[in-house]
């Protein structure tokens, strides 16, 4: 563990990523305490530039809502969406990938055809269809993002299972008379998990970007303080008050950057051979 931390800390970009991630988590945690009021409620005169009024250090948007409050509460929304959607995608991916890789044969064929179908269909298009059928409440949106993001983790898990399923310890489990489900989830999965967990950082980065794009198009939940919503709102006053869109964009950029840097750092620390690439 200590060695792992030392390996991780050796890469400056991984450390920067961790610091940025801690900053975003800090914003999410302190949101209620620093901005106890509803971030979507009227706070003051609309369209005040950042710094113009000491009460609103990031200014106000076109509806007179505090941008700083929306950024802090938005951090919570972004992280929550990222975590939940990623968990859904990774769990679906692991189950499908594990079953396909473990059993092989026609089970594998069928599951891989379904996976390919999901990969052939543009992610964002499928997301649009799901939202237009099931509505754009925040819970629906999160589940929909999870539903479109599982193919890559599934392929990764399958590849791991294909290489692990004929190892001796699996044969030993079979001889002991263990059930398939036990072998898959108790014995093989722990060995197959590390690369999938690292890849989860990519899924999370994409999930946050997907939600913000959806919110920007006003197809996500308008009753949630999401950064994408604020960018979409700021588009109406883009020509002069461009800061309304600019500020939440920077927040998204920092969050996605932090998540992918930490993922890369984990990857390098777990695969020391690849270091220096």
């Amino acid at each position, binding site marked *: 563990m200590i060695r792992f931390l030392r390996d991780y800390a050796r890469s400056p970009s991984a450390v920067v990523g961790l610091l940025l991630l801690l900053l975003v988590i800090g914003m999410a945690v302190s949101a209620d305490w620093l901005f106890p009021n509803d971030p979507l409620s009227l706070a003051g005169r609309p369209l005040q530039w950042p710094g113009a009024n000491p009460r609103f250090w990031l200014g106000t948007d076109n509806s007179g809502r505090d941008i700083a409050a929306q950024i802090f509460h938005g951090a919570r929304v972004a992280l929550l969406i990222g975590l939940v959607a990623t968990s859904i995608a990774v769990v679906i991916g692991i189950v499908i990938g594990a079953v396909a890789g473990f059993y092989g044969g026609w089970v594998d064929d069928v599951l891989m055809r379904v996976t390919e179908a999901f990969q052939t*269909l543009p992610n964002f298009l499928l997301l649009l269809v799901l939202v*237009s059928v*099931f509505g754009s409440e925040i819970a629906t949106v999160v589940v929909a993002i999870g539903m479109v993001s599982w193919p890559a983790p599934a392929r990764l898990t399958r590849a791991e299972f294909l290489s692990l399923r004929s190892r001796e310890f699996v044969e030993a489990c079979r001889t002991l008379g263990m059930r398939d489900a036990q072998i898959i989830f108790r014995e093989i999965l722990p060995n197959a998990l590390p690369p999938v967990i690292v890849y989860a950082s990519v899924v999370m980065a994409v999930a946050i970007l997907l939600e913000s794009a959806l919110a920007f198009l006003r197809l996500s939940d308008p009753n949630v303080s999401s950064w994408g919503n604020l960018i979409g709102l700021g588009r109406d006053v883009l*020509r002069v008050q*461009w800061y309304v869109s600019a500020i939440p*964009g920077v927040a998204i950029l920092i969050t996605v950057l932090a998540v992918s840097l930490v993922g890369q750092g984990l990857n390098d620390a777990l695969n020391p051979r690849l270091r220096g690439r």
Partner: protein
Amino acid sequence: MLTLAGRRLAASIPSLLIILVGMFLLLQLAPGDTVDALMAQMGGGGDAQLTAELRAFYGLDLSVPARLLNYLWRLVQLDLGFSSIYGKPVATVILERLPATLCLMTASLSFAFFFGLLFGVIAARRVNGWQDTVISTLGLVFYATPSFWFGLMAIVLFSVHLQWLPAGGMESIGEGFTGIHRVLDIASHFVLPTLTLGLIFLAIYLRIMRASMLEVLTLDFVRTARAKGLDETRVITRHVLRNAMLPMVTLIGLQAGTMLGGSVVVESVFSLPGLGRLAYEAVVQRDLNTLLGIVFISALLVILVNFCVDLLYARLDPRIAKETGG
């Protein structure tokens, strides 16, 4: 050479079928059907008999499996149905919108591929030097930038403040440009959308190219080439590049879908009349026939791009053609 690509093309048919059946069943869950949309457009009114007749006309009174078969049979005949919102066949609506999206995707892909290649090679040749640090950092930042936000900021900078480029649309209306002027005018409208859509792919390509160059540079044949006395530029262009490009070519196929998805957002930002914008409008206006048609065409496009990538791949790597006995 054709056999492998052809086999992969045939293998994509089941996936296409899964998509179509899945989408059809999924849209059965959507509230309201074509007739509801039509009636709403005609000003509501609850004439039950007319509604029933219309349902029978569109075949909506049949059972779900029968309708599914009907739908698939019509697709085979390339009949995508009728858009009640646009008042035209869906195929016509999509064909009108396809050129803008194809233009945008080709331009973005070329931009991302060319500069990804260039920056990847520079970074790999100066690995851990300042050029590498700058390029790799930019790659990370571009990867994390939401495309729609980059597009908006580009509009603020280049269209509002500097006034160099148009903020949206496909061409200047009312200027009456013809010939080369019209081409240049359209091209100027595509500059910002191309950069916006291409940015994230540029980031991905340069990262892959850098890693792949570093990998290939350690191989024996590169040492042989150097030992023959070839200068470094020739080693790179004649020997390393061709091999290092293979992962990038694979990536084009894998990301064709992502790019189409990205065009939904980018076309909305720049109000380009393309397929992505049409998808967005179809969602907002609940035009499910059109949406289904777009899904079908997009899947076909992705399959087509992958077929081209397979062909290209076999050309770049003769070993593949040999292995399959092409």
